[in-house]
Every structure is written in structure tokens, then in C-alpha cells.
């Protein structure tokens, strides 16, 4: 099996439905197609260059940001407004088709994740896989997430940084 699409923690494999491996080009297509995307940023994004890249990606695609864990604080210190949620709280809201979204504009149709702790993210993605048919999930971590609809592959840091650089532009 292609090592790039074995889940980073291999035992999170849950069943036959596996994520589609995507490149930055496909990920950007998904963002372009989305009407109400959301960017969920977790506590592993705590320093540059990743933090700077995530801010630039959010800015370019005009993405509202939900921060999980306590990463809200360092984004605030960098002047970036985000909405803090526990990861289980935001997933719980995302699975409800009637929720009005982070900005009150309606439920999101695409949720892009980065920097959440791998196994809790995997659990959250499992929730959305089963109970949120109204939205797609995309992960741009350096780890393959089999429970997402679409995921970057397992990568080393250099390759990942190049992927993220590409996400800053159309």
C-alpha cells in the first residue's frame, strides 16, 4: 500500500470509506467551489512558519477561522480574529444542518482542518463523515487523515511547507 495514504497513526482506519488524497490544486478547487467554507485551526499551529502560512491562506481565501484547544490566544496576539471552540464543540455544531455557522450566515459546506491533535481530529472527522452529509471535510496537515473526505498525504516538513505555500494562491 502506498505509504502516503496509510493513516499517520495506522490504527485509526475505521472502515471501507477512506479519504481521497488531494494535492494543493485539488484542495484549492474545493475551496473555490465552496460557498461557505470554514477553517478550523488546532493547537499544533503555534509558531512560524506554519502559523504565518495558515494566516496567509485564511486571508487569501477569506476564510472565517475557528480555533480549537487554546490556540485562540496566540492568533489574537498576532492580531487575527478567530472564534474559539473546543474541537468537540465545533464538530457538534457542524453536524447540525440547521446551525447558522460561525458568522451566522448559514451552515458551512466545506471545513478545512489544520493543526488539531491527530487522534482527536480523526474522531471529529469520523463524526462528520457519519453525521454531516451536508458538508465536506478537507485536512491540510502533514498527516493523512483517512476519516476526512479529502486529505493531504503523509509528508515530511519540506514537502508540506511547499504544499502550504501553494495554498496561498489561486
Amino acid at each position, binding site marked *: 500500500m502506498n505509504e502516503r495514504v496509510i493513516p*499517520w*497513526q*495506522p*490504527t485509526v482506519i*475505521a*472502515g*471501507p*470509506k477512506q479519504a481521497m488524497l488531494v494535492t494543493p490544486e485539488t484542495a484549492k478547487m474545493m475551496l473555490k467551489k465552496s460557498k461557505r467554507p470554514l477553517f478550523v485551526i*488546532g*493547537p499544533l499551529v503555534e509558531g512560524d512558519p506554519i502559523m504565518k502560512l495558515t494566516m496567509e491562506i485564511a486571508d487569501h481565501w477569506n476564510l472565517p477561522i475557528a480555533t*480549537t*484547544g*487554546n490556540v*485562540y*490566544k496566540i492568533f*489574537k*496576539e498576532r492580531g487575527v480574529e478567530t472564534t*474559539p471552540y*473546543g*474541537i*468537540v*464543540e465545533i*464538530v*457538534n*455544531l457542524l453536524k447540525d444542518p440547521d*446551525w447558522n455557522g460561525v458568522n451566522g450566515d448559514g451552515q458551512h459546506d466545506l471545513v478545512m482542518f489544520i493543526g*488539531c*491533535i*491527530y*487522534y*482527536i481530529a480523526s*474522531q*471529529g472527522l*469520523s*463524526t462528520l*463523515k*457519519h*453525521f454531516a*452529509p451536508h458538508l465536506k471535510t478537507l485536512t491540510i496537515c502533514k498527516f493523512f487523515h483517512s476519516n476526512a473526505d479529502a486529505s493531504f498525504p503523509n509528508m515530511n516538513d519540506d514537502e508540506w511547507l511547499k504544499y502550504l505555500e501553494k495554498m496561498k494562491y489561486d
Partner: protein
Amino acid sequence: MAPKDFKEDFWKSKDIKISIGEITQDEVGEETQETVQMGPTPKPHVTDLREWDMKLMERYEPFYAPFCDMCCLCTYGKCDLTAGKKGACGIDIKAQQARMVLLACCIGAAAHSAHARHLLEYLIEKRGEDFPIDLGMNIDIEAPIIRTLIGKAPKKLGDLREAMDYMEEQNLHLLSACHTGQEGSNIDFESKALHAGLMDNLGKEIGDIAQIVALNMPKGDEDAPLVEMGVGTVDRDKPVVLCIGHNVSSGAGVIDYVEDEGLEDNVEVCGICCAAIDITRYNQHAKVIGPISKQLKFIRSGVADVIVVDEQCIRTDVLEEAKKNQCKVIATTDKMCLGLPNLTDEDADKIVAQLINNQIEGALILDPDKVGEVATKVAMQIADDRGMLKLLPDMDEIQKMAKECTECGWCTRVCPNSIPMMEAVMGASEGDFSKMEELYDNDVCYTCGRCEQECERDIPIMSIMAKIGENKLKEQRFNIRAGRGPIQDVEIRKVGAPIVLGDLPGVIAFVGCTNYPEGAQDVAKMAEEFLERNYIVVTSGCGAMTIGEYRDDEGKTLYEKYSGDFDAKGLVNVGSCVSNAHIPGACIKIANIFAKKPLEGNFEEISDYILNRVGACGVAWGAYSQKAAAIATGVNRWGIPVVLGPHGTKYRRLYLGRTDKEETWQLNDMRTGNVVNGEPAPEHLLYAAETREEATVAIAKLCIRPNDTSKGRQLKLNHYIDLHKKYFGDIPEDVYKFVRVEKDIPITYKKDVKDILEEKGWEPRQLIQEPSIRDFKEKKKSSGK
């Protein structure tokens, strides 16, 4: 005259809610008559508390995170339940998750309760069924869970059998519901899981009360002694007997033999996991190695000459591991026999001879006294010969082993926490052991050994870890306050009012196992944070040991720094896993002693009281086991919220509230008869946090209750805001939801909070006098049987 023996379903079949004049017989045989006001649900069956469960779940809807998309429990399967598909039996993914939760809770409840049953029968055999249940002068409400569920107080050891029989019957019904083609609703699976959790709480109370009274453990003693703890406390030059598990009987057998033979100065008796806590409650000369996270490290160190295993949370490869350094294993219960010959009826000296001559790898001995004799004699006879085996590979050898690393990285990938093990091994290969030390310290690596299993070069990573940790042996000396057991009635009288009115900001219980996301220190840091803020901190089991392994800036452990009082700034170690029962027990006693709520058969009223008035919150930061699932689910049913660490999402189900659904927070004011708009307090019933910082803020918020006075609400909001500012950098935006009237606003943050209130268009709300989620008129209970 003996008490009249009503049929078990008498109360339900007659739908009688109050019984007056139950005849009981006191311990000296004189006939007395006690007036017992019996509530509606004595010995509740699976379905009797279903309405309460539904009320909880209306507000705290189950949140599922499937750990597996399939069901593989019957031969129809495997069935793929992804995205709306049903299995061959018709089950859907929600019901399947809830079914697995029920199964986990049944396993957990069975583990605690089978342990309790074994202890109970063993202690009855030792002390007699008429041995009195006497917890001393300061504890009259000695079994609050039994009183509430069974409807009567146990007076003698033999009385505990009635509660045990009831629990076992209930667990059987619950387990049967897991069979294919039984329950089909996730909500009803949940109700059953809540019942299984409740049965778990009951089983634990039976077990701990039995051992406290029969083995003369501390009886609610706030000044219980400090006992030594840590890998560095064991004298490696002496014969060492290590007890692992949870059942004190075999460890007590070892201690008794050592004492009877006057060998206290010649033999080291130590323990890992709850067995350690309970043997030190029995005898303070025993030593605590530490929580479950120490298991493989310590076994690999070769220090133990004999390992005595009883039940629960023991490595199932303990025999294989022990054989590596010629350590002997004695299995002592039916739960874990390890394929060893049953020598219970054999002469002790013959068993000793067979073990030291290597005729057998170990022995199954089901008699605790014989375990004590055999374990001690074997340890004393083989310790000298094992001297060299107590030494792990030297540092040069470690470096050589580490050089085998191919940098494939799979050690890190299979690690539950993805810790940088490969970097640590690579460092060791170059003679730099600092990275490995960082993983050893605070149990960042809790030595599950998955990395070693995966290593393509068979590098003994755990042995390397154990050896490098030995460099810091002198630092591995801590202490823990011996488990005190229940909370005294007099303490409840003192703090009941401040807790219910909110003047005391909360009671926080750190319990559970050591599946920590980033090491053990996080638990101690959380405990320290809340101790400094005047909360009551309660702890038990591995959580209690973890807290003892931390030293503050002055080098003191938290047990040295804080008293064992159940009061503000008190750090209360109740004891082992089964002692957890005293934590909901304390909340129940607040309802009974402070608010005069009758307990007998009155579960719903008591739980409703706790949910709305007692600012308690459980924290199981490293919960891993089915027992922990049952514990949390049980206390949830009593109305106590619990915060789990990130691994807790693998339990598949949380109970989450929705603050945006205001109608779910409405409360019934039992005094005025009005329906009142409430606040999301507590906001969640079972929550998993991703980081310690997030958890700390969540814990403070989850101590808020509708019954808080304005003074109490100010205090609680002050801590919530303080902690939010500390860890999130600003005032929490949702603070307006918890401000009912202006008097609730903390003075320190008045302006900031007022700005938020204005921005949110806040209006003052009616204060509630007797908050409840129960109906105004109590509905007729179904008999359920």
C-alpha cells in the same frame, strides 16, 4: 423478630412511594423500629430511571465519534455502518456506538463489582458476616449510594450482600441488551449505559466499605499519613515483592506474612496502580511505585524478585516480561490466571521449591495468606542470585543498541501520542540521552511498548527507556497521602452551604488512568491551579499518584503543601479506584445532610439536586479503561459533569449541551411553580478537551450552577474569567449567558463584562429559588420488571 422480608418488587408493584415503620433488627438482636421515608425507586430496575435519563439527554444530547465504522459482533458481519447504512440486523451507527458504550460500561461495572464481590466474600470469611460496618464517630451516613439505591443502610458486612445481589442482577440484564437483536435505539442504549455506570458506582462503594471496615483502613481521616512513593524509594539490595492490580487481599497477605515473621526490615513490599494505594491504606510501611504508567518500566528494571498480580489494568504479557529477568509471577484471582498451574491446595514450601528450581514459571494461588508466604519466601531465596539481573544494559550497550535504528519513523507513528521516540533513539545512538530522559520524565512516555513491537530492528526501546530513567533514580522519590476513604459528615456540614450557595467555587475530582496526552504533570498543574484558587480538590487511584509525583517551585509535593481536609484548599485522596464511590457519595451527602433530602429510594430527586446545586466536576485526563467509562457515566447520571482528555473521544460518545438552544436550559422553579429561563450550567455533562489549558477553563465553567447566589456566581465567574484571560487572552464572550442580574458581575471585571452585556443586548433574568429539571408533578413510575 427478624425484619419482614418483602418481595423484591413489593414497593413497585404497589406503587407505594412512602413506607413508614420498616422493622429492622439492630446488631445486638434487639428489636427496634426505624422510620424510613422510602422514595419512589428503591432498587431501580433498568427502566425505572429512564425518564431521568431522557431529561438529561434532552439537554445533553449524545455526541458520537465512531471509533470504527463497522460492527463485527456477529457472523452476519462485518457490517459497514458508514453514512446511514444499516447492518444486517438493522442496527445503525448511532445505536452501534451506544451499544459499544453500554458494553464498555458493563465491563467496567463488572470489573469493579466482581472485585467487590471477591473482597466481600473473602472478608466475610475472615471476619464473619456480622462484622459491623462502623466508619467511626464522624460518619453516620456511611453508604450514601447504597442508601439511595437499595433503600436501607448496611449495618454489617453480611448486609452488603443484598446490594451486591441487586447490582449483579442489573448488570446481567444490561449486558444481555448488547446481544444482537435486542435494543435498537441509541437513546435507550444510553439509558442502559447510565444504569450500568450507576451500578459501577454501587459496586465500588460496596468494595471500599467492606475493605475499610474489615481491614481497618483509614476511616475518613483527613490526617491520613504521607507514604513514600516513587521508583527511587525501593531498596534494590533487599528482596522485593511487587503487587500489581487492584485487589488488596493478596497484597495484604504478603504484608501480614512479612509482619508475622518480623521481616519488615528485610523485605520490600511495593505496588503499582490501585493495589499500591490499597496496601498502603492497610499498612503504611508498604511503598507505592506509582501509577499504571510505571508498569513496564519497573518490570523491565528487574528490581522485583516476585510479582504478585491480582486483577485489572495489569499487562497481560506480565509473565513473558517477568521471565526475561527470571522474576517469578504469582497470579491470585480468577480474573487473571495466565495459564499457570493452580497450586492453591499445595503445600507452601513445595510451591516455593518448584518456583526457585524453575520447575514452574509461576503459580496460581487463590489463597491470599498462602500468596503472602510463598511470595516472601521466594523473594528472599532468589534475591541474591538475581543481583545481576537487577541491572539493565549499561550505557555503552544502550548506545550500541540504538545505533541499529534505521530511522523508519514507525515508532513515532504507532505511539498513541506520536511522541518523538525516533529522535530519542537516534540521540541515544550518539550518546545523547537527554531526549530519552525528557520522555521518561513525567511519564511523557507511559511505556505501552507499541514502539518496540513495531521496530524492524527489535531495538528494546522500553529497556533503554528504563535504564536511562535510572540515571535519575534519586529524584524519583515522592509521597502521597494514604487514601482516607469517605468524607466525614462533619465536613459536609461545614462546607455544604458554601458549596450549594457557590461561596466555595467548586469541588474538582481528578481521577482515572494515565493515558495522558502530554505527560503526567498536566494533572498536577491543574490540581495546583484549583487548589490555589480555594477549590476543594479530590482525587483517587492513578490520578492521586500522578499528583504526588509533582513538586512545586519549593520542592514540595502538593500533599505536603495542602491538607487532606474536605474544605477549601484541601487535597483529598479518597483512595483507590473503588474509593471513587466516595466522590459522588460526598455530593449525595450534601443533599442529605445539608438539604435534608431523604436518600432511600430517592435517586432522581438527589441527582436533580446535585445537577442544579452542587458545583462539582470530575476530570479524567488520562482515562483509558472500561472502568473509567463506567465511572464517568455513573457520575453523569448523578448530575456531575466530567472533563476527559483528548483520548476520551475514543470512548465514542460524549454528552454535549448546546448553548445556542436556549429552550434546553429552561428550569422548573419547584418553589414558585414557574418555568424560568436558565443558563447553560453545567454546559456539558461529558466533555473532551484537546489541551490542559482548554480543560482548565472548561472545568471552572462547569462548576457554575443555577442555584448559585449572586455572591457565589461572582466568585465562580471571577475564576472563569481569570482563567480564560490567562489561557485565552481575553474575557470569555459567553460570560453574558451566566449573568442573571447585575449583582452577578465580578467586581474586578465589572466594566469589561458590562461592555459585553451591552453588546449582546443583555436583559436581567428572574432568579430561580429551587431549580430543577424534573416535572412539577411527579409522574407515576413504571414498574419496569
